């Protein structure tokens, strides 16, 4: 599994790069094509938010490996105007501009974990994670690999 990947977001083309890198990372982690598409969609929504509200920022991605699951963590940062009411920005959607639940609420619904830190004038940091639980066969294989790597255990 690779290290952290960082993409500067300054234009639409950077959004394409962030999507491509997330897809590659998701593929390495064994996510399904459907989940990889959902991750790419969430990244697009967050990147769009950066471009529209802050003009520029960055998106970093890294794999997570826990005992029983794999994860892909995405952190989006910008130094834009920030969000006055984070709760409202994340929870609403149908009543807000556009009214269809895309943007931040849309990205939240596509991922498993979602957190926004923001203060007016202080920029915004969005952290979101998608998890994948390995199936029994995968777990068995990993167990064997670990044993092969550590014969004493």
């Amino acid at each position, binding site marked *: 599994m690779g290290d952290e990947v960082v993409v500067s977001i300054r234009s639409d083309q950077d959004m*394409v*790069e962030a999507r491509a890198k997330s897809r590659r990372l998701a593929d390495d982690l064994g996510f399904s*094509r459907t989940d990889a598409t*959902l991750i*790419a969609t969430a990244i697009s929504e967050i990147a769009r938010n950066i471009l529209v509200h802050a003009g520029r920022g960055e998106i970093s991605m890294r794999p997570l490996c826990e005992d029983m699951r794999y994860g892909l963590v995405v952190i989006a940062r910008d130094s834009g105007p920030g969000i006055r009411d984070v709760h409202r920005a994340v929870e609403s959607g149908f009543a807000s501009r556009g009214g269809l*639940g*895309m943007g931040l609420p849309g990205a939240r*619904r596509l991922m498993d974990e979602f957190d926004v830190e923001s203060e007016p004038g202080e920029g915004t940091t969005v952290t979101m994670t998608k998890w994948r639980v390995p199936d029994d066969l995968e777990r068995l294989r990993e167990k064997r690999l670990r044993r092969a790597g550590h014969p004493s255990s």
Partner: protein
Amino acid sequence: MSAIELRTSYEAAFHNHVVGAGERSLRAAYELGREAVGRGLSLLDLAEVHHEALRSEIRLEGVDAEAVVRAAGEFFLESVSAYEMVRRGFEEASRAALLQRSRLDMLRQLSDFLADTSLASDSPESLKEVLRLIAEQARELIGARLCLVTLIGDGPPLTASSYWAGDPSGTNEFEADHLSAVASLPHVPERRLAAALKSLDGKELGALELFDKEDGDFTAVDKATLVHISQMASAAVERLRLHMRGHGGD
């Protein structure tokens, strides 16, 4: 974007994906789906447009049908991802509306019960029973582990409680356990929600307190619900006390 404009753009973007699949063309698919959602086109419209685009591509001379079908799958998945985002939002809104409706039903039931003239008994036990019911309904409605109702007056305070210990067989009925449960709860403001019970002339009658929300912290909606219950409870308590005084009780 009309259905016709969507069809033209979709066919062109799909062709680009077939001849040079990559993240750029996948992003175009996602943007088309997003635009279609924004314009209020249905998923059926999009599926139809996709089908037409696929058919046009397959008809081209010397085409590798298998490669086109594979590309069509990738492209379609991206284009419907915006619909998935909206579907999840709709599901979330439906769940919230259902919860709201269930809360309204329970509030109506409680209101009917408190307005019932059969409560107008002269026995102090009747008042205690009303308090217990208020505690139970408030705890259940808002999803807290514990609710305490305290009435103050000339004599010693009168309390009733409802406690959910996580036991699926039902709420714990022992009041002593309820009080020890209060002592064991962490005393952080976010874990407690309270509303005063007040008479019509503003005199303090007591308080309604909730502790330890089952999932997360208490919300603004929880606070509004508790205030509503406390207003209904205050009116019922005041009415009962008046009735008992009239009949020499309390």
